[in-house]
């Protein structure tokens, strides 16, 4: 494959087959892309509030001419758009990084966090709250208020993952293959239970849970970020420490061990980190598909599978894409709002197909 020269890449003569210079250039571009996406999300929306003016006034200390309008704009930018942008960036980054980690762990480019049961468990938790909030689970909703749903989704996902981990671990060794197969069984069971709940639901609840399943960032508030933000940030921050181990794992578990990687600890950290980050994401935003598979895939074609670059690049691209998708979701049918899952799928699927068709040769390897 011919090396493509990228403007701004270091001029040092790189060794043949060393794609790290290109990867660093791509990461620099992605930083720029994320900055632009944040700007785009802050400035676009159903209202004509000007984020630029609010931020400029804040910096310069200028007193706005129309105080009432300025107060409204400030409210929209600080309390509605900013938490939404922050949450979108966190969730986009989490979903993409978790996808990349799962693919490295399962040594399969088709793996996604759903494989370890976290999505099915989260859905079950969330749907249980939506359907049973006035009956069996009334004490829970009473105790936690609006946080009951994200909490139920988070712990539902974590519980299923830990159950799978226990099933797949024998004599201190976790079998990734067993985990995958048991995951299919347990996920089917969780989905059946979810189905029972859906069957019991009334019309209003059906509408609520359909929208929840399609995913949305509309519920973003500062308290919610305070709840799930630390979980996601911690999990993402742990991922770079996995990158060398995941690279070695590409050669198989035994060889990774011979190279000096503590394989069991790597597996445990990856599984718990992913289930925490995805559980937290699904809890506040519902099911946002596609990011976890597409982002690492596209990046692997651009910079190669080296996780030292793939993981940070996935975080940046995942965050940017979700912000852009959310900006589209908020504006395209304004003042109404499209579920973001629809946007990511409608825009992502054809793009992904196009990439696949262009790069068939490399993918078949």
């Amino acid at each position, binding site marked *: 494959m011919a090396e493509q020269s990228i403007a701004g890449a270091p001029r040092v003569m790189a060794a043949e*087959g060393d794609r790290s210079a290109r990867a660093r250039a791509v990461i620099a571009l992605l930083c720029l892309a994320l900055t632009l996406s944040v700007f785009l999300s802050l400035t676009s929306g159903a209202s004509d509030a000007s984020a630029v003016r609010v931020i400029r006034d804040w910096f310069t200390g200028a007193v706005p001419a129309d105080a009432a309008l300025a107060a409204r704009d400030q409210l929209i930018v600080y309390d509605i758009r900013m938490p939404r942008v922050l949450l979108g960036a966190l969730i986009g980054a989490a979903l993409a990084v978790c996808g990349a980690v799962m693919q490295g762990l399962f040594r399969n480019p088709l793996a996604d966090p759903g494989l370890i049961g976290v999505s099915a468990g989260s859905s079950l938790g969330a749907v249980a709250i939506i359907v049973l909030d006035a009956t069996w689970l009334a004490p829970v909703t009473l105790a936690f208020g609006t946080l009951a749903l994200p909490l139920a989704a988070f712990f539902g996902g974590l519980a299923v993952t830990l159950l799978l981990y226990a099933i797949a671990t024998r004599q201190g060794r976790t079998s990734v293959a067993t985990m995958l197969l048991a995951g299919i069984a347990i996920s089917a069971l969780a989905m059946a239970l979810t189905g029972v709940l859906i069957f019991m639901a009334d019309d209003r609840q059906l509408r609520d849970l359909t929208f929840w399943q399609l995913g949305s960032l509309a519920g973003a508030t500062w308290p919610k970020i305070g709840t799930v933000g630390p979980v996601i940030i911690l999990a993402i921050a742990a991922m770079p420490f996995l990158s060398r181990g995941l690279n070695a794992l*590409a*050669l*198989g578990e035994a060889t990774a061990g011979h190279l000096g990687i503590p394989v069991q600890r790597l597996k445990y950290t990856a599984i718990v980190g992913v289930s925490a980050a995805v559980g937290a994401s699904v809890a506040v935003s519902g099911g946002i598909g596609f990011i976890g598979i597409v982002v690492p895939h596209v990046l692997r074609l651009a910079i190669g599978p080296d996780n030292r670059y793939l993981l940070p690049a996935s975080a940046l691209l995942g965050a940017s894409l979700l912000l852009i998708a959310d900006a589209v979701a908020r504006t395209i049918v304004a003042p109404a709002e499209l579920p973001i899952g629809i946007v990511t799928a409608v825009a992502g699927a054809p793009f992904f197909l196009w990439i696949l068709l262009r790069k068939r040769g490399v993918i078949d390897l």
Partner: protein
Amino acid sequence: MIEARDISVAIGGKRIVAHVDFTARPGEVSAIVGPNGSGKTTLLKALTGELPYTGTVTLNGCDLSAMKPIEAASLRAVLPQATALSFPFTVREIVRLGLIGGRSGVLPGEDTRLPERALARVDLDGFGARFYQELSGGEQQRVQLARVLCQVWAPVLEGRPRYLFLDEPVSSLDVKHQLIIMNIARDFAWRGGGVVAILHDLNLTAMYADRIFVLSGGQLAAAGAPVDVLNDELIEKVFGCRLKVGALPEGSMPFVLPQSAA
């Protein structure tokens, strides 16, 4: 020195290796031979800590089972029979993985060029940018050997010998590369390291091994220098075919031995 005492390995309730004693000295190439299914690879996996075993294995006097992966990785590198990849890594990226433990033994800064040197060593100069999955089986095996060499580039580090474990390193190679790879193994031993290799070619074994361990049905059938071990009776007993050691074919039948290499 690698010393293994009374090694037994059971897989799924079936005993594959039974009560084997094994010693590999630095400065020597130790070959493990035997028919298919005689437990060669299983023994090697016990010696590298990949499979649970009973008995004791020590590396340079330290108990293997008490070592952390990173400590064991600084003392020995392991070449598996074959390695399949799930992602499109380039050849250089694969070879570089050998440097993960950071104990190649070259001067700091020389590490960055080590993948190229290792590739040249296994006769794959200029293959760095190729995709691993595009290569033939024999080329892939040599890429993996280059990775393994990067991990323990210096056969002796801080006064302690290091070891290469090679599971059928030449089985998928043409005769030229069989000789190149076996010469790398012998050179590693000459410079103070130890080599443990599973081999099928008895001629190459006789030519390169200092000691041979013959496995049969999971047990040690014989051990010693090639000249003491390779005889008609042993080959008939272990391999079940009547071959004459050192006999030439009759008449004008051509034969090619690696020993004749100039």
